C-alpha cells in the first residue's frame, strides 16, 4: 500500500474510481439478487456474477494474482460444485415454492453484523490510505508471494491446518457412511470425498 497522493479529493474521481464504484454496484446488486431469487440455479449463476465482479474489483486495485485465483477457485470450482449439487436435487426450472426458510431475519442480522465488522476492520486498518495505481503494481504475484510467505506465514499455515482438518473430517464422514451401507460404494460418499479432495486442491 503506497502512501496517499497528497492532492486527492472526493469530487474529482478518476476513471478507475468510477469504474470501481460501478462494478461495486453491479456486484452488490448481483449479490442481493442471488440471495432473494427463488430460482435455485439462477441464484448460483448470480453468485458467479458476484464473484466475477469481485475479481474485477481486485483487478482494478492492481491485485492481479488475487483476482485470477478468485476466478479459478470460486467461479471455476466452488460454483461448479454448487451447480453439481443442485443438479442432483430436484430443483425445478422456474420458481421453487419452498425455497425459503423461516429464519431469514436471523440470516439478515448475521449478514449485516458480518458486513459491519468487515467494514469496520478495513476502515480502521487503512483509514485514508490511497493506493497509487500508477506506480509498480502493489498486488503482483511477486509482491503477494513475498508478503504472504514472509509476514503472514503463521496464519497461512494455520489456515492450511484448518483445511486439512476439514479434509480429514470429510473422509471420516464418508467412510462411516460406507461402513453403514456395508455394500458397494455409496454415491454420496464418493461425492463427499471428491469435495474434500477438491478442497485440498483449492488450498
Amino acid at each position, binding site marked *: 500500500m503506497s502512501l496517499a497522493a497528497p492532492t486527492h479529493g472526493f469530487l474529482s474521481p478518476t476513471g478507475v474510481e468510477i469504474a470501481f464504484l460501478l462494478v461495486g454496484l453491479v456486484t452488490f446488486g448481483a449479490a442481493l439478487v442471488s440471495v432473494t431469487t427463488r*430460482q435455485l*440455479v439462477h441464484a448460483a449463476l448470480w453468485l458467479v456474477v458476484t464473484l466475477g465482479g469481485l475479481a474485477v474489483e481486485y483487478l482494478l486495485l492492481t491485485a492481479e*494474482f488475487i483476482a485470477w485465483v478468485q476466478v479459478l477457485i470460486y467461479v*471455476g470450482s466452488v460454483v461448479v460444485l454448487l451447480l*453439481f449439487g443442485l443438479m442432483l436435487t430436484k430443483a425445478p426450472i422456474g420458481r421453487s415454492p419452498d425455497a425459503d426458510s423461516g429464519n431469514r431475519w436471523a440470516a439478515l442480522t448475521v449478514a449485516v453484523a458480518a458486513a459491519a465488522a468487515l467494514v469496520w476492520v478495513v476502515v480502521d486498518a487503512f483509514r485514508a490510505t490511497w493506493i497509487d495505481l500508477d506506480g509498480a503494481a502493489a498486488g503482483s*504475484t511477486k509482491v503477494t508471494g513475498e508478503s504472504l510467505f514472509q509476514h503472514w506465514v503463521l496464519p497461512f499455515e494455520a489456515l492450511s491446518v484448518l483445511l486439512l482438518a476439514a479434509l480429514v473430517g470429510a473422509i471420516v464422514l464418508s467412510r462411516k457412511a460406507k461402513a453403514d451401507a456395508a455394500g458397494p460404494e455409496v454415491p454420496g460418499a*464418493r461425492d463427499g470425498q471428491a469435495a474434500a*479432495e477438491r478442497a485440498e486442491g483449492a488450498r
Partner: protein
Amino acid sequence: MNGVLDVALRLLVVFVVFLTFPLIVGQTEHKVMAHMQGRLGPMYAGGFHGWAQLIADGVKFAQKEDVVPNGADRRIFQLAPAVALLPYLLVLLAIPIGPGEGAVGQVLDAGVFFVLAVMAVGVLGSLMAGWASANKFSLLGGLRTAAQLLAYELPMLLAAASVAMAAGTVSLPGILDAFEWWWLPWQIVGAIVFFVAGLAELQRPPFDMPVADSEIIFGAYTEYTGLRFALFLLAEYAGIIVLCGLTTVLFLGGWHGPWGADGLGWVWTLLKTAILAFVVIWLRVTYPRLREDQLQKFSWTLLVPLSLAQIALTGIVKVVIQ
C-alpha cells in the same frame, strides 16, 4: 492514438486467429480422421479436396431454425453458448507465440492462473446448457461435465504449478524466457498429465462421456440447434487450439527450437501447436470412450499422484541446481 491503434490491431489479430484456427483444426480433423479410417473425408465443398466443408457447414447452421424447448429456462439456455465460447477467446489473448512484447495479445503477470481460471469458466456454459434444456439427457450430460471438471482440474493445475515452480514465475512469457532444453525430460510427466487432463476438460474423446452420443444423445447440447449449436462446436475446437498452445508454451518451450529461434520463433510455436492438435485428433480416432467410473478412477488414482510426484521431482531438482 498510436496506443489505441496498437490495441485494436492486437485484438483484431487475436479475433481472426480465433475464427480461423478452429476451422483449420476442424478441417484437419475431418481429413485425418477419414484417412485413418481408410476413407477420403469431404471432397466436394470448395472444389479442391473439400477445403470449404466447414464454411459450408457454418452456412447450413446459420440457416437452421433456432429452437428453444418449451419447458427450457429460456434466458440461460440462450446465454450458455456465449459463456462456453468467450473464455477461449480471452485465453488466446494471453498466449505468447514469439519472444518479445509484440508476439502476445496482452502480457499478464499471472498468466498461468489467468489461463486456467478462464478455461474453467468455459465449462460453466456446458453446465448452464445441461440444466436449462429441461431434458434428462442434457441434465445427465451436465452432471457428467461437472464431475469431470472437478476430477481433472486438480491434476491440470498441479502440472502447471510444477512448471511455474521450475521457472520461478507464473507469467507465460516469463516461463518461456527461463526455458532450457533439458526441461523437456524433466517435466515430461507433468506435460503428459497436463495434456491428458486438458483433453478431459475439453471433453474430447476418449474422455467424451459428457456428450457420449450412444448413451445420452449429445449430453448438454442435445436440445441445441442452428447457430447456438455451432457455437458450442466452435468452442470445442477453439479449446483444442488453446490446450495445444498452452502445452506448447508451458512444456515444449514455445518459440525455442533447435535452430532459427531468432525471428522465426513464432513458426516453432505454431508447428508445435499443430503437431499437438494432430495428436488430439489421433487419440480421438484410436481409443474408445472410457466408462464414467473408469474416468474418475483414472484421474484420482493415476493423474493426481503422478502430478504430485512431478511437483516433488521439480522441487528436488530445483533445490539441487541452486
